[in-house]
């Protein structure tokens, strides 16, 4: 908390260093998790499609599993650091709350008609608040459903919470789909508003 206040008094920092480090570590981890996850999915597809092998990671099932179960540590440890700091520095409360449905509707309308202001990068509009909170929840869900697929005997209580092993696979898939959908919007907007990308690199 003190570190952040001190930085703020020196220069208007939009994203403190820990946010930026966590962001880019997470970007790397999630890319590996998704790429290898798609290859793992292809070994036993839940739906009538598979992912094109060229956009998957690992080459074959065993390779993908090695990547997946290595990058999971990066994803989980980094995620725990991020969520813990987000809560205890008060950043989540300040940036992401409250989310008022009426504001979400009006901001969404403004966004879709390209009239949503992005002047102040340190302030999130209601749609951003909803998306960022949503993707954090999807991240927590993907870890918990992943744990229940990985350890359906040792963590069987958790697996049961997801409706059993087979259902947990679907939860894991849809959490991935949610994160991928978020990424599509997130990356597109970062490219449309390049200063937001700069802020995540330099902090300002």
């Amino acid at each position, binding site marked *: 908390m003190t570190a952040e206040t001190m930085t703020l008094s020196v220069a208007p920092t939009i994203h403190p260093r820990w946010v930026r480090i966590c962001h880019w570590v997470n970007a790397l981890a999630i890319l590996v998790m998704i790429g290898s996850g798609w290859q793992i999915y292809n070994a036993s597809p839940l739906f009538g499609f598979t992912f094109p092998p060229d956009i998957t990671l690992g*080459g074959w099932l065993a390779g993908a599993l*090695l990547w997946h179960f290595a990058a999971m540590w990066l994803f989980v440890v980094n995620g725990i650091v991020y969520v813990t700091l987000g809560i205890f520095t008060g950043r989540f409360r300040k940036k992401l709350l409250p989310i008022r449905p009426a504001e979400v509707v009006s901001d969404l309308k403004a966004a879709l008609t390209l009239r949503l202001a992005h002047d102040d990068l340190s302030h999130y509009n209601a749609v951003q608040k909803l998306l960022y909170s949503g993707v954090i929840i999807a991240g927590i869900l993907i870890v918990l459903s992943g744990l229940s697929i990985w350890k359906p*005997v040792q963590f069987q209580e958790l697996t049961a919470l997801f409706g059993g092993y087979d259902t947990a696979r679907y939860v894991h898939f849809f959490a991935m789909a949610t994160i991928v959908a978020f990424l599509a919007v997130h990356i597109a907007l970062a490219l449309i508003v390049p200063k937001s990308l700069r802020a995540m690199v330099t902090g300002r």
Partner: protein
Amino acid sequence: MRQRKVIPGVDPKLLIKDAANLMPEASRRGFLRGAAGLGALAFLTGCDIIDGESAESVLRKVSEFNDGVQATIFNGTKLAPTYPESAITKPFPFNAYYDEDEAPEVNGENYKFEVAGLVDNKKSWTLEDLYALPEVSQITRHVCVEGWSAIGSWQGTTLSEFLKRVGADTRAKYVWFKCAEGYTNTIDMPTALHPQTQMTFKFANRILPRAYGFPMKVRIPTKLGFKNPKYVVAMEVTNTDKGGYWEDKGYNWFSGL
């Protein structure tokens, strides 16, 4: 490399089929190639650690680390969930790296189960001997490394009971299994002693059909399917990790559930 000695009860013409058709490349490091995602990774990290032996050795190190984590998580008394008969998957899938009509055909009449390594009694066991062992039953979920799962019903004797009867040194680290077609598997001793780890002779109360591993399968509901060997012809209690068919190709060694 593979020793071809005559195994009692096994058709000597039986040859191990290579699983190369399941892999993009026959080479051991094939799994690191042909992935567009690698380019993105190299771009993001700004270095070329991904494409080469260092990446493979890092991944294998992490996999070994994960073996340790799983051994720690493993609870020797925690039972895998069991299911009612109505939950049994019908038909229970045949699963191997070869087609069903290529599955080993073991002759039960001259079958001999060989016991080796750190045991007091190395006499081999006929099917009659094995069928006389106390029977236990389980209806549990088989989880494949590919992701799918199926519920089956297995009967046989607990491996821990068998280990006791042959006077196995249960302080040894591993139990190694050898199968009729050349498939092998090594499991850790704590898993071998788990109450649900079973030397299986029956599926759904009938003698194991050829498709499910006649005459013996080792059913381990706390491990992925490929750690449940079928057509088992020999076992060894050992302190040396002798690896296994899929483990040696890159699948995680412990593969616990």
